[in-house]
């Protein structure tokens, strides 16, 4: 990614690269099953969503998959048969996520069975959150800092929720925007302090409230989000890859058991500033 940025900058310096929208004759890969299941150490109910792929040029509409049988069992004898409350959304009824337990998800739909399992990792505390100037653009970016447990391999998922402050003279409310997921591991800093940028689509402004969630996850889910964040939007990548699913039988998506910690702070100033949580 960094390389592409440099290349783009050089290209911009030498000449102006031009962009135009083109229409391509794309293959049709609609109707493939997508499963997204999450279970955490926070209070339930937990959600498993079933949908189908649409063709690339279709308008973004989720095609829900209804009438499936979805169950989650754990290694301590717990079992839950999920209820479809809205089309394609299946909720747990009794299950309560616990650290250290392994969860098995089973989905039966259109005559096929899909299985996945995931083990809930212990939570990791957030030391602080804040905003920073970034290396490549001057725009402030949110970041999170925490201490990695030493001696074990850890994978993390961070989610930024930006409560955007809208000028009170017009409308007086805080608008929440959930932002992209970022993942980080401790490959280069096992047992040390990890500072990681949280991804946002929008610039952070004065008055916004920054809320960051830190999830302890397993490698398959890390790989899943790592791929999405790194190689899926450009044909310039040598081989754009689909994120590797941890669900059997060819289903797209993932099943993730995770533990979460949260931190929240108001941005007082749009300038680069470090905010330490008390």
């Amino acid at each position: 990614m960094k390389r592409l940025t440099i290349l783009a900058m050089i290209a911009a310096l030498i000449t102006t690269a031009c962009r135009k929208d083109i229409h391509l004759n794309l293959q049709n890969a609609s109707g493939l099953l997508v499963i997204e299941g999450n279970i955490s150490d926070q209070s339930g109910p937990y959600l498993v969503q079933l949908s189908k792929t649409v063709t690339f040029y279709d308008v973004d509409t989720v095609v829900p998959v209804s009438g499936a049988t979805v169950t989650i069992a754990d290694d301590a004898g717990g079992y839950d048969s999920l209820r479809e409350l809205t089309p394609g959304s299946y909720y747990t009824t009794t299950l309560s996520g616990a650290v250290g337990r392994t969860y098995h998800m089973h989905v039966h739909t259109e005559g096929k069975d899909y299985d996945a399992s995931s083990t809930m990792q212990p939570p990791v505390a957030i030391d602080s959150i804040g905003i920073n100037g970034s290396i490549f653009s001057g725009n402030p970016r949110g970041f999170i800092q925490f201490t990695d447990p030493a001696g074990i391999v850890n994978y993390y998922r961070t989610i930024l929720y930006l409560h955007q402050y809208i000028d009170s003279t017009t409308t007086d409310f805080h608008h929440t925007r959930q932002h992209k997921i970022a993942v980080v591991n401790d490959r280069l800093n096992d047992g040390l302090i990890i500072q990681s940028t949280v991804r946002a689509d929008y610039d952070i402004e004065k008055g916004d409230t920054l809320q960051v969630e830190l999830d302890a996850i397993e490698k398959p889910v890390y790989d899943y989000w790592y791929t999405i964040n790194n190689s899926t939007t450009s044909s310039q990548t040598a081989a754009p890859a689909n994120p590797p699913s941890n669900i059997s039988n060819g289903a797209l998506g993932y099943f993730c058991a995770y533990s979460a910690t949260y931190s929240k702070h108001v941005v007082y100033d749009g300038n680069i500033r470090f905010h330490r949580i008390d």
Partner: protein
Amino acid sequence: MRFIHIFTTTILCTLALAATAQAKHTLSGSIRDAKTGEELIGAIISVKELPNTGAASNAYGFYSLTLPDGHYTLVGHYVGYTDYIREVDLSASQTIDINLAPAAVEIKQVEVSARRTDDNVKQAQMSATKLDIKELEKVPVIFGEKDILKTIQLLPGVKSAGEGNSGFYVRGGGADQNLILLDEALVYNASHLLGFFSTFNNDALKDATLYKGNMPAEFGGKLSSVLDIKMKDGNDKTYSVGGGIGIIASRLYVEGPIVKDKGSFIITGRRTYADIFTKLSKDTTINKSKLYFYDINAKANYRVGKKDRLFLSGYFGRDKFGLGTTFGIDYGNVTTTLRWNHVVNDRIFSNLSAIYNNFSWKVSINSNGVDILINSIIQDMGLKEDLEYFLDTKNKIKFGGQSTFRIAVPGEVTVNTPLFKPVDLSRSYGWENAIYAQHEITLWQKVSLNYGLRVSSFTVTGPGKNYYFHDNGQPTDTSLLKLGQFGKTYVNPEPRLSVSYNFKKSMSLKAAYSRNTQNIHLLSNTTTSSPTDRWIMTSNNVRPEIADQVSAGYFLNFMHDMFEVSVEGYYKWMQNQIDYIPNAQLTANETVESQLVYGNGRAYGGEFFIKKRAGKWTGWISYTLSRTERRFTQVNNNTWFPARYDRTHDVAVVLMWDITPRINVSASWVYQTGNAVTYAAGKYQVNGQWVPYYPLRNHDRFPPYHRLDIGATFVLKKHKMWEHDLNVSFYNVYARQNPYQINFISDVDNTGVSKTQQISLFRIVPSLTYNFKFTYVKPQK
């Protein structure tokens, strides 16, 4: 080893045949440019009285011609030079140095046939192109920077790595499978500014030959091609200074005698100056930014007595890119070659070279008080000996060996913060050896044969940690080597054979087979090469890459060798090719080999070429119809899939027109089938975010690529002492928006709508270059 046995038996038998002795004597010497003293490579010396008898000068201008006693008329010729004619009475061996005078432009149009040769038809060697450095200066290129690596992309069988890029693919081989040699030293990264320029400054170059496979046994180490570039030796008669001023870069060179007629030197330099404009900016991030490259070529040679000559040559190039004080990257090559030419006797020529080359890069990141420095270097130290034995006019034997010790430092990280732990990226060491012998023979006048054998070996050398992996990428075993200890050794015999049958004058059929191996592999998971891509050596897990190629062709020259036509077909198999698992972590990974997968490749195609070599109009048309495929167990369900640079049709048309001796215009047009790429075929939502879905790899195509470039050179003055000219060129004249990248994105203006966006790099790029040359001429007394 059975191979070697058969090989030695054959060579001994043919030698016995050849040794039907009669009173013979040898003429030998050097063939040089009369004006500058530069040795001419591949100049022909023929005997008027004995048709089909002659010799060509070798890489150091040395020739040797053994004839029966008699009275002969010798004719020396070389493209762009007037013929040299001399009568000799041969009754004893003698040394004759031949000085060829460059032809004046006016004569050029008259004496066409005398200076053209049909060597391209007669020689057994096929799939080789000798590049005319002077002709190269006429072909228009981007930014007006004459570039050998961009001009060879206009030849059949050679594909460009991308828009404005100096990287190239030969007959389905990867960009890292080209053996690019500068005065025998391997150039690892032949590009500047991330590929927009090559490392070769035209002012420093004397001669270049491209072998698209079926290379002679003297070359080895890379799978697909050899680009053998030789630097100028420098004028040993008088001093001259020249250079050029362009929009992107400026060049300067100085050459002259060290001792007249005994030794000379040449120093060339080049630097870009885009950063001069960034300094003018008021923005501190921009005006503290660095963006430039420079390179220096230097060479000196000295004749020690009549039989010995020493050469010292070097290349030093560096790219620097920095964004304010926060990010910097700095990379480049160094090559140095020390050579000793020795004429053992009038029929045996020896060259011994000591070679050092490296490629290194350094990345520095400074962000919020955190300094990170990453250092990488790959370096080779080697010795190479080549012996040429000019047995008689029909037999030539060449043999020798090479030994190279290689060290790779794969990106050592130093940080000033406790936020990161240092990664233990152990250095790797390897020892590569090769011996070879080849025999060029002419049989029954019409058949030429060039056969040879190269035996190469690679030894994993200590100190180092070598992992053994099994399928899921987890290290299963570690072998530790101490300093000086040898690990696994791979030995590969590489047979080479090419034959030509001249069934009519200036018409021949040729066929060839060759095997090549490669023990150094470039890991890059992007499409264009980046300086920070990692080179790894053959190891316990990574096996030598092997390629076998067969090719056949028809060659024809007509109208007194004014036109040259060739049709060639090839088929190539490649084993132990390297690819990566999805989401491979290639940087700062101590077990990078766990990210690799291995498979096979195949490439086949036809190449058509027609060239007009002389006259007011010159130029060529090349067309390649080809396929390049790869197969990996882990990709596309183990079926053959097209390589990214598999382009079915590839056309290049180059025209040059000398309107007057002072005005020359040129044009080149290229057309290529789009790259094989992977387009999104669907999308789905996870966590509220739309994610594209990709079906099989490389099953879609970019739109076709085509472009026209034009250029003109105006000679302002051409005098003995002072000459200068002006070159104007336009890249992509009709402003075709060729796809560089296609993005699959959400439309920012229309929520919920996905679109495909094409990014093109260049529309029209005009450029202007002013070139000058001043030669010191002693005033006449």
